[in-house]
């Protein structure tokens, strides 16, 4: 197991290398200039050139790439052009809202998706199952920003239950913090719940058709026990894959939702940085997200072994 984990972690090195170089080249090749954005649209070419020089952006691109990579290998992601602080610090500062939002959205999605998916499988072809399928279809079809805007109209403007936008730090109280994350979390969870629930339903239907479930029923176990002891646990293994990828998807979905709800998370940071061409932050955030994807996948693989004793890494 330890060797397996070490091997997977070692595989991070080429991932970081490829992602890093690709992102660096891509963002430097697309037009746009942080100096122009700082100086505003009325700045003259001479002013832009002056600031580009001051920021070191007039050096050849390969020189900038080598300098950046040297720093990354030393664990230094550089400094943000706009935020005037180290990129790692900026990511750290923006991580809290995204982590809170993602955790809350995932918890909501799981709380709705797993029971309803299992129930729909158990009551296959019933009215509940049909209603469930409609919910799933809506969940995966409606973009999260649209859900978000409608939630604002309903629960922040018509019924003033939650703030329209903005983030409250948990240091100012758990209630206000949850209040600031409630609507964006529901907007994000809606899509994820659809994906997870569909997988939970399908895998539960498959498991319920297995011989050992028939054996359990023939032994006289009631349906609740069959579901709880035999079906759900086995149905969770394929569902877990979707949960792992959905967690990663939440990070990308958060980009849009954080912008709509003005949450100062990683998503908002990357959107702002792209529009300002804040190269070091874009590079740093993409590297960070790539790292999160790899680690999440590793954790999901390790959880397989915990749920299914037949799976062993060695």
């Amino acid at each position: 197991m330890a060797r397996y984990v070490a091997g997977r972690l070692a595989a991070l090195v080429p991932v970081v290398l490829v992602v890093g170089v690709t992102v660096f080249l891509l963002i430097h090749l697309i037009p746009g200039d942080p100096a122009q954005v700082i100086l505003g649209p009325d700045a003259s070419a001479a002013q832009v050139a002056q600031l580009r020089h001051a920021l070191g952006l007039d050096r050849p691109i390969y020189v900038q790439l080598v300098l950046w990579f040297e720093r990354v290998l030393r664990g230094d992601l550089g400094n943000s052009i706009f935020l005037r602080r180290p990129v790692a610090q900026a990511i750290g500062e923006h991580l809290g809202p995204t982590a809170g939002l993602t955790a809350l959205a995932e918890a909501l999605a799981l709380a709705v998706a797993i029971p309803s998916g299992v129930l729909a499988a158990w009551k296959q072809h019933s009215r509940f199952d049909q209603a469930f399928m409609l919910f799933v279809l809506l969940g995966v079809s409606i973009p999260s920003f649209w859900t978000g805007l409608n939630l604002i109209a309903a629960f922040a403007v018509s019924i003033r239950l939650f703030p329209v936008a903005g983030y409250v730090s948990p240091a100012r109280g758990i209630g206000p913090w949850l209040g600031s994350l409630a609507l964006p979390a529901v907007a994000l969870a809606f899509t994820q719940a659809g994906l997870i629930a569909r997988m939970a339903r399908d895998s539960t239907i498959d498991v319920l058709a297995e011989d050992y479930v028939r054996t359990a029923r023939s032994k006289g176990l009631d349906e609740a026990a069959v579901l709880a002891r035999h079906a759900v646990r086995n149905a969770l293994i394929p569902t877990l894959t979707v949960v792992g990828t959905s967690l990663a998807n939440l990070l990308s979905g958060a980009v849009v939702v954080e912008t709509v709800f003005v949450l100062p998370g990683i998503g908002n940071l990357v959107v702002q940085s792209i529009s300002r061409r804040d190269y070091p932050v874009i590079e740093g955030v993409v590297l960070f997200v790539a790292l999160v994807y790899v680690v999440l996948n590793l954790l999901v693989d390790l959880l397989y072994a915990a749920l299914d004793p037949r799976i062993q890494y060695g």
Partner: protein
Amino acid sequence: MVAVRSPLLARLLACLVALSMMRAAPGLAAPGGGEPVRGGVIHVATNAEPGTIDWQSSTATATRLVAWHIFEGLFALDRNYEVKPLLAQGYAVSPDGLRYTIRLRQGLKFHNGQPVTADDVVASLERWGKLSSGGQETFKAIKQVKKVDDGTIEIDLGRAFAPLITNLGDPKQAAVIMPKSVVEASGLKPATELVGTGPYIFKRWTPGQEIVLARNPGYVSRTEDWGGITGRKVAYADEIDFFPVTDPQVRFSGVSTGQYDLALELPQDLYPKVKADPHLTADIVRVFSWTGVVFNKAHGVFTDQRLRQAVLFAMKPADLMAAAIGPKTFWQLDPGLFFPEQKGVYSRAGAEIYNHQNLDRARALMKEAGYHGQKIIVMSTKDYTWNNNTAQVLVPELQAVGFSVEPQVYDWPTLLSRRAKQDLWDIFLTGFSPSIDPTAIIFFGSTWPGWYKSETLEQELAKWSSTPVSDAAARKKLMDQIQTTFYTEVPVAKIGNYFGLEVYNNTRLHGYTSYFDVRFWNTWVTH
């Protein structure tokens, strides 16, 4: 009786009851502002976050509307867009017009407690002369800026330059005064130590979340009721919090619910909703921006003035403005380089050419210029809805007279980058925020994208610069000449003036007055 156990459900029901009561009695709006109240926090939803708050470093509106609460210059605009002293007590000009002596007001202090001295002023002006395009232009006429004593500076000119005081009061990349130590530490990079003399002090900036300013308890205000950016300024609110909220619908929802006191730059199609809500007041900002077609005069077909004139005659500004902005309440067809409210510089010269679509004349000019179907690239952006909407109408209008057009749509940073390269475009669309003097009009500069060079205009601007501000008749005549040249040489084809829509919650924000950008001194909140 049914007991409500869940506190959330109870709150929900209470809100529904309250909402139904509010709907039943729409006339029960809170009374007006009454006497000013000290304290509280003004919450402002902005449409963009600035790249920097150093006002000397950036021309961006997002910078200015935060920065002018923190920083002040020697001179500034009043409510009529005329320049008046701010940190300066006054100034004297030598008989030959080559020496300006500017006295500072007494008792001025920076936010760090240091007194404002002539050394700070000299250092700040010299930095402005290097950083800002207006400053660079002004310093071409300046021989030296020197300290006379702690409260007085002298500016010696190499040639007469009447717009000197006007340019020192220009709010675009303003000549604000900072401590000499901050100037030296910043150099030509945007300053990170934000120390000014204004009614509010920079407190903190949490990127993506908020910019917070706090009242300056030691602010030394002028006493005159000049309005604009100068005169008497009282900081009633304890704090001003600026929140960057990029989605306009969210800004509108926030100001409707009272989460924000004022929301900036809302889409004009929300105006009926604003009018229908008695708690909201629409501030239609008339001195806001005008839209134009910028030609590449260094490369391609539009180096020929006749083809630029052809575009002017091919366009129908009313259609372009209707497509771009929408309701007629929010736009105006006007030939001026300046807005009608800017009485000192406004001119209607060129009215016989502007907004006179003449397709035959356009085709004749194209034939005369020998146009034979060369492709012209029209760049626009979807980052600003009006911009791409304008292109949607402009392109078929140009095609209708025979231009071969290739529309290209980019995000705004990309457009800014491409427009700096002479061989990549022929036309781009942009908006021009108000200028205060013809020498400060950005597209008159030969280095700004478009690369306009005109001997006629240079001579006219030179005459303008040497004509004393006191000679109003001569200045009016010159301004007419400059605008006539604008319509003859067409460096930019003007489309129309468009107005901004800011909305504030009138139950919470009081004393607010309209201006070309929002200001919150002399304004108070009751919540």
